[in-house]
């Protein structure tokens, strides 16, 4: 039987505002299939976002949904998760939202290893505001604020996440929806901060400026530039120039923040009792 996406969609909010050919839909579908596999009640799930095309996702989904300020989704989500550690908090962000204006929150959510799943839809561009360069726009590629090609080197979101302490880090692409679903599912299962980067297309704002004006061309470009992690290990660095590595890049175990805080509460309460007794 076909997967029942409508169970999780607010159909009365349709049509959505994304452009034809946009990859966000592929990511959202992978995410919904993963949530279904977790068997969670919709009442127990919150989806939090910042600002941008990707951040419009929560409004279309039938969960507890929170559309916050630009870059700040992880800060709001941290409060939400700490208030209800027993519930499930998913953050969905774009590359500008997560890596530029929200960069500090991103680093520290990784460091705390709080049990939140972050999905970053990386389409290399600020789509909603008109195709400005983002921290992930590849060097030399064009954007409305990089008319001669980007001079800023691009940021590798997964490498930053690993360095900052995230304990599950994976990168998938919208060319491979089923793999993406598996990574998101493993991220949801993982106890700790998980980051799933989904390399996605934006034919309207990015592709159009970089000789890939159709979604097909862009998704082909993504497919051609992804190197599975197992193969990447065998390649010399120069062969990986301009490419990105896909797969489960990092899985580690480290104390999870809300569990550590629960232990802290026990300790503080014991100490207070001792002081009174």
């Amino acid at each position: 039987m076909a997967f029942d996406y409508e169970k999780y969609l607010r159909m009365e909010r349709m049509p959505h505002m994304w452009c034809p050919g946009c990859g966000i839909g592929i990511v959202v579908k992978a995410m919904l299939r993963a949530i279904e596999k977790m068997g969670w009640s919709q009442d127990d799930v919150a989806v939090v976002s910042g600002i941008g095309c990707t951040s419009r996702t929560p409004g279309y989904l039938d969960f507890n949904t929170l559309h916050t300020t630009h870059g700040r989704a992880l800060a709001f989500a941290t409060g939400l998760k700490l208030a209800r550690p027993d519930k499930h908090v998913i953050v969905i962000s774009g590359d500008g939202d997560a890596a530029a204006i929200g960069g500090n929150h991103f680093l520290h959510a990784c460091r705390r290893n709080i049990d939140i799943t972050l999905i970053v839809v990386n389409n290399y561009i600020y789509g909603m505001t008109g195709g400005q360069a983002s921290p992930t726009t590849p060097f030399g590629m064009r954007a409305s604020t990089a008319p001669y090609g980007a001079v800023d080197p691009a940021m590798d979101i997964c490498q930053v996440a690993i360095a900052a302490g995230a304990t599950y880090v994976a990168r998938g692409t919208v060319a491979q929806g089923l793999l993406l679903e598996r990574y998101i599912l493993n991220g949801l299962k993982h106890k700790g901060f998980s980051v799933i980067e989904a390399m996605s297309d934006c034919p309207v704002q990015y592709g159009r400026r970089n000789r890939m004006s159709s979604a097909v061309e862009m998704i082909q470009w993504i497919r051609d530039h992804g190197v599975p992690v197992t193969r990447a290990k065998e390649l010399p660095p120069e062969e990986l120039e301009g490419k990105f590595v896909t797969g489960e890049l990092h899985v580690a175990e480290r104390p999870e923040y809300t569990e550590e805080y629960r232990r802290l509460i026990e300790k503080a309460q014991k100490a207070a009792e001792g002081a009174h007794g």
Partner: protein
Amino acid sequence: MAKEVRLWEGNHLVAEAAILAGCRFFAGYPITPSSEIAEYMAVRLPQVGGTFIQMEDEIASMGAIIGASLAGVKSMTATSGPGFSLKQENLGYACMAEIPVVVVDVMRGGPSTGLPTHPSQMDVMQARWGTHGDHWIIALAPAFIHEIFWATVRAFNLSEKLRIPVILLLDEILAHMHEGFRLPDSSEIEIVDRAKPTVPPDRYFPYDESQGDVPPLAAFFSGYRFNITGLNHDKSGFPTTNPEIIQRDMERQRRKIERHLDEILWWDEHELEGAELAVIAYGSIGRSAHAAVDRARALGIRAGLFRPITLWPFPEKRVAALAEQVRTILVPEMNMGQLVLEVERVAAGRCDVVPLGKVGGIPIDPPEILEAIKARV
């Protein structure tokens, strides 16, 4: 266990009062002169099963308390000048989304890094208009240790009752001053919790005008699945660009304040009967003004004190009546003239309004205010 009178530091008492008012989540970032609030919360909140978190910055602290409040947990943050500037973005979010939170701003000299360890009253206008866009907000400025306690409790109660952020404006003097105070028993404290929806989830709308000016706010994860956004929204909480819906929603938000002025407005009066000169002062300068008025009366000068504790919304009606009554209103404040602008607006030429602004990080003492009074009568 009967509680005893003990010495309380202003910052510590804010924190203890918040806990007694039901606060169970605090997110903060170190900044002078408010850090003792965070330090006290770090000790006390886990003892009562609550959560303290030191966030990566001021912006994140403000975001985190909104998130926690949406899960139904009363939440607070504390900061000072530069940090208060950073919080304005998400403070506006709390206004727009109507999420109850309490924000303490311990005023220090500014702008910018200014005078980190010295008092000022320079954030009065920022408290009202710091975030962009039209919005309504409540700001309380207590002057005594006991008043800090009750203002903190009231800040939580008003924010819960009206679904609005409440700013608690202290200054560095009050924050670090010690005075005797007996913590009330919980039976002596009235606690207000936000209204919960009574309708079933499929008929719940977080901004439903038919439920009153302050529609009930369901907690996340409570079985009511709804959307919250910082965009202008319709009654269901989904984005809208419909001008009529936006106009109606903004007017409802204004009514939340206008129809509850009796509960929000709070002030103290001293020797105003028969006064021909009124001093309007608040926070720690309200104490100097009180002493100056007593000395003026002893000299036979008919001076009185109006000391607003609620600065926003401004107590317009009472100040307008005072402007009718007196020849002069003197407004001493530790800035170059902020609340005096509001006094001038309300007095509207009915009496002389004289600013007495002083900056540089030292308080305005009673003799200075007395001299200004004498010069005007």
